[in-house]
Every structure is written in structure tokens, then in C-alpha cells.
């Protein structure tokens, strides 16, 4: 079963380039990523550019409307995702707890609907 882990950080953006904080974060993520890859559960994992880089698309009455910015303003900073394939929720929750974001922000584990198979 596939699970999308939505990564909500405690603050927007990444630490200062060149800072020790950033180096630590990168190292922690590398460890977490490697562990998931070695276990064969990792499909993809990436941080996102800031919401200022977002463009929201809506098609209404045959016309495409573009909005500069995110679809919804939310308090949490949605800053990345991790996509895994696990045996069950328990397994996915265990991996979610290994992600650095879980320690200072939060990780929402959201099951994917299996398209083209039994859901």
C-alpha cells in the first residue's frame, strides 16, 4: 500500500545556506532516506520550493484560471513530501517517525487510493 507523507515544518523555508543547521538537516535526511531505500519502501522524497513559487490552476466554464500562490492559505508550512510503499499503516507510521520533520514539525501519513485495483 502506498502512503504519502506530508511534511509540515515548524517554520517556512530551509535554514540559512552554509549554516551548520542546514548541514545537520541535510545529513539527517540523508540517513532517513537511505534507511527507507535500503528497506525497499521509498518511492520518492523531496522538499518543495516556497509557496511563493506556487501557481494554482482552476478550470471554470471552459477557461483556465491561474492564481499566483497556493490553493489555500494554511498556518502550517507544507514543505515537502515522502512517498513510500509499505505493508500496512503500522509500517508507514514507523517510517514517518524516522523523518527529521517529525521531531520539530509534523508528518501527516495519508494513504493513496490504489488506482486500477481494489482500494
Amino acid at each position: 500500500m502506498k502512503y504519502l507523507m506530508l511534511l509540515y515544518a515548524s517554520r517556512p523555508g530551509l535554514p540559512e545556506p552554509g549554516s551548520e543547521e542546514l548541514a545537520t538537516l541535510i545529513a539527517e535526511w540523508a540517513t532517513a532516506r537511505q534507511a527507507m531505500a535500503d528497506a525497499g519502501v521509498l518511492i520518492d522524497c523531496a522538499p518543495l520550493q516556497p509557496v511563493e513559487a506556487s501557481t494554482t490552476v482552476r478550470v471554470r466554464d471552459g477557461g483556465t484560471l491561474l492564481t499566483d500562490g497556493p490553493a489555500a492559505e494554511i498556518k502550517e508550512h507544507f514543505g515537502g513530501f515522502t512517498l513510500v510503499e509499505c505493508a500496512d499503516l503500522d509500517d508507514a507510521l514507523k517510517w514517518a517517525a524516522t523523518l527529521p520533520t517529525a521531531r520539530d514539525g509534523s508528518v501527516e501519513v495519508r494513504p493513496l487510493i490504489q488506482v486500477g485495483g481494489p482500494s
Partner: protein
Amino acid sequence: MAALTRMFGDLDAAADAVQEACALAVAKWPVTGVPANPRAWLTGTARHKALDRMRREAGRAEKEAAAMREFGDRQDPGSRAYDDTAPDDELALIFMCCHPAFDPAVRVALTLRCVCGLSTAEIAAALLAPEPTVAQRVVRAKRKIRQAGISFGVPAGDDLAGRLAVVLRVIYLVFTAGHLAAHGDRLIRGELCDQAIRLARGLTTLLPAEPEAAGLLALLLLTDARRAARLDDAGELVLLADQDRTRWDRAMISEGEELLERALRAGKPGPYQLHAAIAACHSCDETTDWREVAALYGELIRYEPTPVVAANRAVAVAMAEGPAAGLVILDTISDSLASWPQLHIARAELLRRLGREGDAREAYHAALRLGPPAPEREFLQRRLGELTEPGR
């Protein structure tokens, strides 16, 4: 599912049966391989499950009237939840209903529905929640099991201890909801106490090597043994010290004591065994051994480092070694419990026994200012009346 719904004329029953069959398939097929005709396997299994359920429901109706408060039923280990299902499936079902991915209130409702077989109306009545709320909780939870891939199985290895703690907590919550109903017309809801004991008994049978499961059952039996003595003729709560001990259920107490003794012999102590040991101290015929109670609370703090446990320990120390010793402990935690009326009441009682009437009066007033329930308010006002007025 359509075929099953036609067969049983009940969408919910069919849906449940299909879901159970799918859950079994998810658990079994990776091990046994996918059967030649998966569809037929699912339908067959689902029909079997639906028949099981109907048998259970039918048996239930007969037992229902007699079972609710009958003592005999409480003694019957072959209660309806554990009679016709394979032990492993039964255990897996309990762990599924008590999954930590559910909200605690959802775990309680789901367990009462799926493991105990209560109807949503019965659950709503017992938990004093609106029936649509309970129904919605159960429906959403069942949906989440399917959508989120909550697996049907008994946690293995290191995971078992953590998950078992959640299951024990759910059973404990069912019991406390009945033991001292927070609101509603009745202070004690015996049917919930019975269900909790039934669940704990089932779990102890299924997991005989887990002393904490036995510890919980012992705790519930020792506590529930006092049920008949806990209310006076007017329906008011009677404090432990004032209870008529001849109305305690001796058979339940000795069963609880035996269970506890056997559990402790395993040498794997835990919070429920300690709570049970404290309950056993309060259940003995002679006067309570407060030194022992204080020592047990001292142990319990290692598992539950809460100010409430510390306050209970302080009271036990005061009973064992005198009010001054208890007061020293209470004063170290009074900041973190300033909004808990019981803390001020305990302090006031100790101050009064030490003859510090002015301080005692202040503490009684502090408790009153927190707006305690009516019976406690009356008690506090009576105590204040007994103290001499200042300046006389």
C-alpha cells in the same frame, strides 16, 4: 457484497462481513498465497463471517436481559465475545479496534461495538453520547481501517508491549466510564464495568504470559467488588473508609488477589499490577497497611510520574507516618496541582490534624473557590463550620 446483502437483507451486516473477509485475506494471502478463485474465497469467507455474527447476535438477545447485571454472567468466562471465534482472530480484532491511529474515544466505541457486540444505541446510552455521534465514529473508524491499511493481526516482538498498553488503557477507560460516570442520572454504570471485566478476562485468557493483562483484571475485580457498598440508600457515593465491608463481594476479591499474586510471581511489574496491589491493600479485612500503600505509590511514580500519583503517595505517607511527613510531600507538588480541589482538601485535612487551623481554613477556602461538585462542597462547608472562628 451485493450477493451477501441480498442473502442477509442487511447492508451493514454484509458490509461488515465483507470487510472482515477482506481483512483476513490481506492477512492470510501473503502467507498462504492467493486462492485459485479469490472472489469465491471472499464470498465464502464473508458468508461464514456473517453467519457467525448472526449466531452471536441471536445468542445475545437471549442472554441480554439476564446478563447485564447478573453476577453469574460476570463469573462466566465463555461470554459472548469469546465463544465462537478462533483465539488469534479474536486477539487481532481487539488490537485492531484499539489501534493507536484512532482517537481514544473512537477506540472505546469501536471495541464495544466490534468486540463486545453492543449496538450503537447501547454504546450511546452507556457512554452518554448522542447515538448519531457514536454511529458516525464507528462508521468512520471502519472506513479508516480499510482506507489506511490498518492490519488485522497481533503485533509481534517489540511492538506488542506498546500496543498492549493501548489495549489495556481502552479496557481501563471502559471500566472508569462505568465506575464513576462523569455525568448523567446514575453515578455507577454497572453494565460498562461488566463489559470491561469481560474484556480483561478475555485478554488474560488470550495472553496468559502478560502479567499486566492479569494485573488489570485483578484491579478491575478488586475495585468492582465494592460496587454494592459504594452508594448509600440515597444514591450518594460512600467513601472507602465509611463503606459497609459486609457488602463487598468476597468471591471477586479473592479472585483478584489470586490473579495478582500469580501476575507478580512473573517478576515483570507494571502500573496495573501496582494499582491492583494498592486496591488489594484497601480490600483486606484488617486495617489498611498504609506503609505498604505508600511504598506501592512510590513504585508507581516510576511508571506514572504525575502529580496526582505523588499526591496519593503523600496521603498514604501521612496515614503511615503522620500528617507532617505527608504535608512535606504535598507542598512540593502544590504548584502543579493548584487547580485540583482534591489537593487543597488533602492539605487542609493534614493542616487540621496538625492543629494549624488558620492554614487549614485557607486551604478549605482554596478548594471551595475551585467550584468542586455539590457533595464535596457540603463536606468542605461542614469542615469549615467545625473549625473555630478566627479571633475567638
